[in-house]
């Protein structure tokens, strides 16, 4: 057919015409979508709650002083309009890329806090979201002054409030994804007592720089507690609702600040349920049975140090990476977290001990959650003044003559990992199969004893870190 020759010629037209085509701006219009229907590979959520006590209450309803509006993001393409939708979606992601590298210099904070916050008994699981706590502390710096603020700035490694504000805003944006395929959302909010005469400009700063919503209502009232729980549920997809039961704001609270992280993503290549089977996990207190997922990474990444070995799995659509660190026999995850070489590895320094090889990966399915009281731990890290009404300075938020102190800092988190991500399976596996010769070496990477994990987001900052002592 003569048209086929012309069609072949169309396939050879010069790049400049393809570029011209891409420059023609699509008209903005709403696309039809289908969201992911299936379960997710990783569901993660964390909440940090800071409450400050003082007193007084009378009846009133709840109202929003300011509600944050998140940036609009083109949805991940599904359905018939795939060609166009991909382009719109890609353009949306460019906005995020502009914020890449925002977390430069935060390593010291992450590495100082992780060993402290994840330390604990050998029979418990613990989860910590470094970015979540960072965001909460950055907001704390905004609403404090004097030495209260200085101590927070020092822990965060920030030179001044303005620098911190810029960085926090960039970190927020760099980690923001809400396109239907990936959810990565850092939520922030402030809950004020009805009697509090707040400073509007501070709340505006929190809204603009931290995408924080602020509410005011009667502390201890059912209406306020309900709104409060609804907000957290909405931000974390309801995953932490059981942990938050009974955590209502009591009448003595002056204000509460809540930061959340919700991250959902599918594995770039899923585990097949066919290969999931019960096997023994050698926990500190004795063997326990767990459902182990199995997969072979033809071009897996294998890292090693003096006391650990590690591998990583990517999430779809550049959402981030999950790192698994397996301590050598006789080394606990908690010890590993205090090991200089391991911390150097976690800080993302250029690691020489790396090989691409066939990795036969065995990972137990897990659903780990923990509630950490960070008050004493933060005090141990030098943040002390905000915890005493004699020294706490909340003047940026309200009149300094009102004595108040930070009474609690609670951090709840949950990480669920399973096989899902079916849509992604064929994609990557097929890609790998035809790409090149398989590597000669291979390694069995079996997480059948307590291990560490780190989940880094699109900006390679640690969204979650955890110790799995018992899956």
């Amino acid at each position, binding site marked *: *057919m*003569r*048209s*086929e*020759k*012309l*069609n*072949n*010629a*169309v*396939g*050879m*037209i*010069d*790049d*400049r*015409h*393809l*570029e*011209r*085509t891409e*420059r*023609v701006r*699509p*008209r903005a*219009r709403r*696309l039809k979508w289908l969201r992911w229907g299936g379960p997710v590979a990783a569901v993660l959520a964390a909440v940090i709650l800071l409450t400050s006590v003082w007193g007084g209450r009378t009846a009133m309803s709840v109202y929003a002083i300011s509600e944050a509006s998140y940036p609009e993001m083109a949805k991940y*393409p599904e359905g*018939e*309009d*795939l*060609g*166009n*939708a*991909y*382009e719109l*979606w*890609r353009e949306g992601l460019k906005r995020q890329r502009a914020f890449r590298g925002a977390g430069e210099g935060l390593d010291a904070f992450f590495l100082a806090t992780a060993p402290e916050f994840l330390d604990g008994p050998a029979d418990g699981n613990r989860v910590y979201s470094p970015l979540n706590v960072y965001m909460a502390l950055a907001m704390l710096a905004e609403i404090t002054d004097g030495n209260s603020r200085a101590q927070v700035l020092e822990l965060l490694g920030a030179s001044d409030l303005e620098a911190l504000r810029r960085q926090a805003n960039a970190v927020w944006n760099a980690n923001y994804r809400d396109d239907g395929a990936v959810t990565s959302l850092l939520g922030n909010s402030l809950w004020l007592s009805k009697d509090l005469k707040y400073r509007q400009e501070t709340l505006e700063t929190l809204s603009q720089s931290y995408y924080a919503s602020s509410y005011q209502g009667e502390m201890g009232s059912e209406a306020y507690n309900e709104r409060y729980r609804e907000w957290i549920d909405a931000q974390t997809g309801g995953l932490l609702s059981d942990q938050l039961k009974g955590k209502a704001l009591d009448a003595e609270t002056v204000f509460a600040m809540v930061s959340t992280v919700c991250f959902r993503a599918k594995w770039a290549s899923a585990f097949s349920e066919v290969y999931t089977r019960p096997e023994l996990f050698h926990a500190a207190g004795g063997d326990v049975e767990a459902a182990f997922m199995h997969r072979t990474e033809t*071009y897996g990444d294998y890292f090693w140090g003096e006391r650990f070995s590690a591998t990583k799995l*990517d999430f779809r*659509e*550049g959402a981030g990476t999950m790192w698994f660190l397996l301590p050598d026999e006789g080394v606990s995850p908690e010890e590993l977290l205090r090991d200089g070489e391991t911390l150097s590895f976690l800080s993302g320094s250029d690691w020489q001990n790396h090989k*691409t090889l066939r990795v036969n990966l065995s990972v137990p399915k897990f659903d780990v959650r923990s509630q950490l009281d960070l008050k004493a731990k933060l005090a141990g890290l030098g943040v002390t003044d905000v915890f005493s009404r004699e020294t706490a300075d909340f003047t940026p938020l309200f009149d300094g003559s009102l004595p108040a102190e930070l009474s609690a800092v609670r951090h709840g988190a949950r990480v669920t990992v399973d096989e899902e991500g079916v849509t992604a399976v*064929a*994609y*990557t596996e*097929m*890609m*790998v*199969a*035809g*790409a*090149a010769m398989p590597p000669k070496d291979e390694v069995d990477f079996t997480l059948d004893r307590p291990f560490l994990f780190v989940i880094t987001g699109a900006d390679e900052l640690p969204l979650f870190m955890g110790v799995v002592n018992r899956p």
Partner: protein
Amino acid sequence: MEDAAIIELFFARDESAIAETDRKYGPYLAGVAFGILRSREDAEEVVSDTYHGAWRAIPPTRPNVLRHFLARIARNLCFKRLEHDTAAKRAHIQTSLDELEECVPDGDSEPERLWEARELAGLLDRFLDGLGELDCALFVARYFYCQTLGEIGERYGLSRRSAKYRLEKLRKKLRKQLEAEGVVL
């Protein structure tokens, strides 16, 4: 990762070139392949084969624009795949080919010579150079990316009818130009 760095990975025979390419261009290529094949499964296979093709082609080739280089591989693979498909599966692409057939001069006279695809591409380049931005985009969207009239309308803010009308005019214009150049296929 920048394109230049990805290309260097290919030159260094570093397999992470594939992963980096997939990370950066996987969704785009899936869109290109799906536009032609209209089958998600087939499109995924073509994307995978595209990486294989790139691995074999680079080196020695050093693409000017990696994104478009990959798109061409994917497009070629899609059409090769369609050669073996049933008429029902080709229905979508057949419409696009039928439209291109309209552009081909009758060729009643004895051809002095047959035009090769590469020469035709040069002629198409000149044809597209003479078009405005939107018309160029419409032509490329329809005949390079094989998008449907509905998709083109959606993307460029035109009604389906309007997109169809503009493309008809473009085909007539192309036919005239091909005739003027004495093209016989």
